[in-house]
């Protein structure tokens, strides 16, 4: 399983923290004044649907949310297919993947509603990654290993965007999705026999690193 196991994780391993911190600072130098807004009470008061209308969001935030939406479509479609495939998931793990699938679908619906007309359309996927994982939906080990790496990638992807969302009304929601992805990642890692966490500090991934990692799955 080492080959499949390391496929996405290889993308996570490099020490990217410092580079990402630098890019966040650059983004803020350019963007900070526009989005950095006031006090805690202001932020707390903004949890209304109106505050999230896409037309009220800066283009950079729309781009981040569409990137997140694409990844959520990826995950939601992956689990919808798996959960609908007879005989793939052992009975004792159907609750786990059913729950994860529900969350991912909810994330798709939420991000779509936030973006409104600006939302990207559902991409098309090839979960065999061009034939690299031919038994993804017939072999539970392949499926669960892939699930584990996909969830770890999702956590790192959201984390990589937190700086771009700082000071905006959608940061709170992004954080609430981010930690749910980490629950998924921890659960599936335990299932496949890995430690729930790869250390005390989870690393972020940049958008380009994530897109490179998931590219084989997008048709």
């Amino acid at each position, binding site marked *: 399983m080492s080959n499949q196991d390391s496929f996405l994780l290889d993308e996570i391993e490099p020490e990217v*923290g410092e580079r*990402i*911190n630098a890019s*966040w*600072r650059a983004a*803020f130098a350019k963007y900070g004044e526009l989005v*950095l807004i006031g006090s*805690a009470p202001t*932020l*707390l008061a903004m*949890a*209304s*649907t109106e*505050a*999230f209308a896409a037309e009220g969001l800066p283009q950079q935030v729309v781009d981040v949310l569409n990137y997140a939406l694409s990844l959520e479509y990826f995950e939601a479609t992956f689990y919808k297919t798996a959960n609908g495939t007879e005989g793939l998931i052992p009975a004792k793990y159907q*609750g*786990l993947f*059913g*729950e*994860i699938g*529900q*969350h991912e*679908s*909810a*994330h798709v*619906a*939420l991000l779509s509603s936030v973006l409104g007309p600006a939302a990207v359309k559902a991409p098309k996927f090839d979960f065999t990654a061009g034939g690299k994982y031919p038994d993804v939906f017939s072999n539970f080990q392949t499926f669960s290993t892939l699930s584990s790496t996909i969830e770890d990638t999702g*956590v790192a992807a959201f*984390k990589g965007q*937190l*700086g771009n969302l700082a000071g905006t009304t959608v*940061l*709170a*929601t992004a*954080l*609430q*999705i*981010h*930690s*749910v*992805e*980490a*629950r*998924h*990642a*921890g*659960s*599936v*890692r*335990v*299932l496949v026999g890995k*430690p*729930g*966490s790869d*250390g*005390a*500090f*989870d*690393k*972020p991934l940049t958008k380009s690193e994530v897109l490179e990692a998931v590219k084989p799955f997008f048709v």
Partner: protein
Amino acid sequence: MALGQSYSRRKVLRWGGAAASVMVAGAVLPNFGLSSALAADLGEGDVAILNYAYALEQLEAAFYTKVTDKPFQSITQQEASTFAEILGHEVLHREFLKKALGEHAISDIEVDFSKVNFDNRASVLDTADAFENLGVAAYNGAGPLIKNVDYLAAAGTMVSVEARHCAMIAALVHGPSAASAGAGHTSGGLDAAMPPKGVLAEAKPFIKTPLTSASFY
């Protein structure tokens, strides 16, 4: 899914007793110098947020130190290694925050685990579950309050590890399951986000040191 729920204060804890679910405003009000010398002023702004996280990480590290020092009877290998792993993370979080705060760091807090029966597996796992879920809700609620993007980035690297801990603890009880994926602690695919005041009220039964900040009310 209404985004308006982002800051709704969902029940994330299962501690018994009314005290744990009652908001105690006094816990976070300035103490006007009247409290005992044990009181810790968290400061204001980002310093207050970091000290708040530091206090919670101290609480978690102290808890797992007790769990691993004197394990409950017939603890399994998987349980022992999970607790040891989590302890390692919480200690690193605590030390990271202490170092980041430098001279602004509060002193060591005094914890109170009299409500925990460390000889009882269920008590230990329930408390671990409560602390980890409180930690996730705390970081999620604090994130938008952080002004410095580097601190936000740092919080981001720790909150997901706390969420992984939630899954690991739930998996000890239920195996990899809907519960470990967040059932019961999430709503509409979202984790809770609690403001500091609410978190400190939940944590108050376990922290003897009064924690004060002019920023949290």
